[in-house]
């Protein structure tokens, strides 16, 4: 069971993520969109969507920091374990609460605004369930295992395990003593990662960073392979 959850599942999730993105790129670029419902309802979305997105981006940054920056590095720049804990507890919980408030408002909007509800697919509902579960479980695990002074030191167990995945030698033993709530959160998180390319979440891989660098006006010439070139004028 441990091998399955902490040795195989991460790689399955990652494979599904990569395969899904490749599949979307090769065969379903047309379906690669935010599927925005703003045209149906703008007022609630204008508040809820930025709140959720900024919250979840901060949560993502927190996860990257917690999982992939070893404690020795933060120690080296003079961040004490206590400071880190406070930041992780209050900052993380605040970001999670913001994201949760945003998604709660979004789900409320989706349920109560008839056109938005009508445009909701079964796929969306599954996605919302997993996403909300991941956020709630994460916050629950954090809060349940923390006091203002100290908390569960996931940087000694979960984080090294996560890094070991990328060295292709998963250290399954590290995960055996982890609190159950953290374990469930991690599994749901991996499920969410696997779901990304098969749901509307795919739009996160369309983040238009290139917009900052491209020229404003885009020109396109006809595809030379499809059009015959104009040869030299005939005559002698």
């Amino acid at each position: 069971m441990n091998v399955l959850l902490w040795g195989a599942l991460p790689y399955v999730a990652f494979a599904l993520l990569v395969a899904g993105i490749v599949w979307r790129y090769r065969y379903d670029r047309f379906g690669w969109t935010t599927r925005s419902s703003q045209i149906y309802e703008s007022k609630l979305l204008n508040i809820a969507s930025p709140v959720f997105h900024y919250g979840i981006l901060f949560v993502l940054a927190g996860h990257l920091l917690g999982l992939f920056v070893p404690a020795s590095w933060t120690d080296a720049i003079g961040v004490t374990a206590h400071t880190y804990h406070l930041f992780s507890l209050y900052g993380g919980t605040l970001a999670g609460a913001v994201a949760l408030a945003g998604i709660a408002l979004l789900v409320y909007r989706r349920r109560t605004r008839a056109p938005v509800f009508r445009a909701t697919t079964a796929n969306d509902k599954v996605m919302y369930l997993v996403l909300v579960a991941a956020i709630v479980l994460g916050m629950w695990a954090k809060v349940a295992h923390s006091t203002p002074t100290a908390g569960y030191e996931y940087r000694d167990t979960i984080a090294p395990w996560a890094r070991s995945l990328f060295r292709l030698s998963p250290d399954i033993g590290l995960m055996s003593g982890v609190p159950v709530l953290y374990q469930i959160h991690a599994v749901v998180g991996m499920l969410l990662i696997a779901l990304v390319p098969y749901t509307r979440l795919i739009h996160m891989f369309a983040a238009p960073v290139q917009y900052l660098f491209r020229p404003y006006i885009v020109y396109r010439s006809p595809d030379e392979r499809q059009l015959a070139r104009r040869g030299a004028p005939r005559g002698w």
Partner: protein
Amino acid sequence: MRIMAQLAMVMNLDKCIGCHTCSVTCKQAWTNRDGMEYVWFNNVETRPGQGYPRRYEDQEKWRGGWRLNKRGKLTLRSGGRFRKLATIFSNPELPEIKDYYEPWTYEYKNLTDAPLGDDYPVAEPRSLITGKPMKIEWGANWDDDLGGAPQYGDLDPMVEKTRAQASEKVRFAFEQTFMFYLPRICEHCLNPSCVAACPSGAIYKRSEDGIVLVDQDRCRGWRECVTGCPYKKIYFNHRTGKAEKCTFCYPRTEVGLPTVCSETCVGRLRYLGVLLYDADKVAAAAATEEETGLYEAQLGVFLDPEDPEVRREAEAAGIPHDWVEAARRSPVHALVSRYKVALPLHPEYRTMPMVWYIPPLSPVVEALNETGFDGEDPDNLFGAIDTLRIPLEYLAELFAAGDTGPVRASLEKLAAMRSHMRAINLGERPDPAIAASVGMDLTEMEAMYRLLAVAKYEERYVIPTAAVGDARRLEESAVPTSCSLDHADGPGMGGEGAFGQDSGRTELPLVSLETFHALRAQQTADAQPHVGDVAASRGEK
């Protein structure tokens, strides 16, 4: 100088009767699909009126188009690149479907399936958005023919602007009203703000004909283009989650056919043709400081295809010969640059629009006739332009950023043309002073009359085909170029048969004779033959 060619359109508003045939045929051809129920790539608005979507011209609210920043640099009114990315999670200036109108259908089934009862069954309206019964409160054309003008007319943003300058000029009392129709499609701008606003880089301008298109595979549904376009002519397909827009019917224009809206226009008021322009000058022209200078600035970007230097440069820039020739015969070039009677719609948006309009004169003549004066007498007519029933100021807000000068000049030319042609019709001797007073000569005047009033199909639409080089190559390839011995039934392989080359074989190309004549004409001529001449000579054969 970087010469580019653009297919552009001019609409003669004098002739628009507001029949909406263009809208309907366009809808049938392009937007009769799920998710596009509310979309009209082509719509006809009654002006004054709020337009579609409602009050789209209020850029304080919708933030479409470009503006000059403090340093005089061109920036998107909806914000720079960083603001766009920072607000990407919800577009704060996106019109909702209710700003267009909530599309609906009727519960027709009820008419046949209703149980027997005392009342006639009715077909209830059903929203196409929610699927529920709805109250119809607005449509794409709710204020057509000034319907509800006493209530809604004041909401026209251009009426507000006009009133700020000439407060008495716009009235909605029945006997003081005026109206005209304004058909609108995508402007296929030279400096398109929708293209600039697209974070994904999915919208592009085709380099060969300037048509602005959305790459459906690259669009990610950020909706910034809808805000970016000040004309609100990019629409969000709420089923596919992608932006869609007028395509200038490129599959038709590529083979030389006019767009659906032009082809089906019963008033024959649309003109299609090529304009040559200098792409290097566009940005500077769009950044002209004074808004009222933008019309002249855009005229300055266009190039005269009669200038041999321009023609040489154009062909050097890879513009096909027949495109350059089409530019010479282009009705759009004539109306925009030669006669200067066509004006751009809202040049103040700084997008350099490429669908231009000839302002309406007709109501003036009618109004003059009603007062008992001779409506086509030049003295009366010129004087009346200033006291138009459609206030000059209102037209100026639409077509010249509020400057009445270009509108008056255009209307005076149209008025002069009427007087001149009336004299000819009545067998009088036309007074050359009339033409001279608007800076034209008699031949020009009559040529303009022919283009505007007679408006022959082939003079209204001068559309060079895409890939004409390819067409020629295909045609030539129909003539066997390889040795006939190579073929299975060449002379050495069984011969031509008893009845010669064409006997019993259908694959022998029938175009060969035409090609032969066309090639001979081309190869023996001193100059490249005129496209029209070649077509004519082929027609005779």
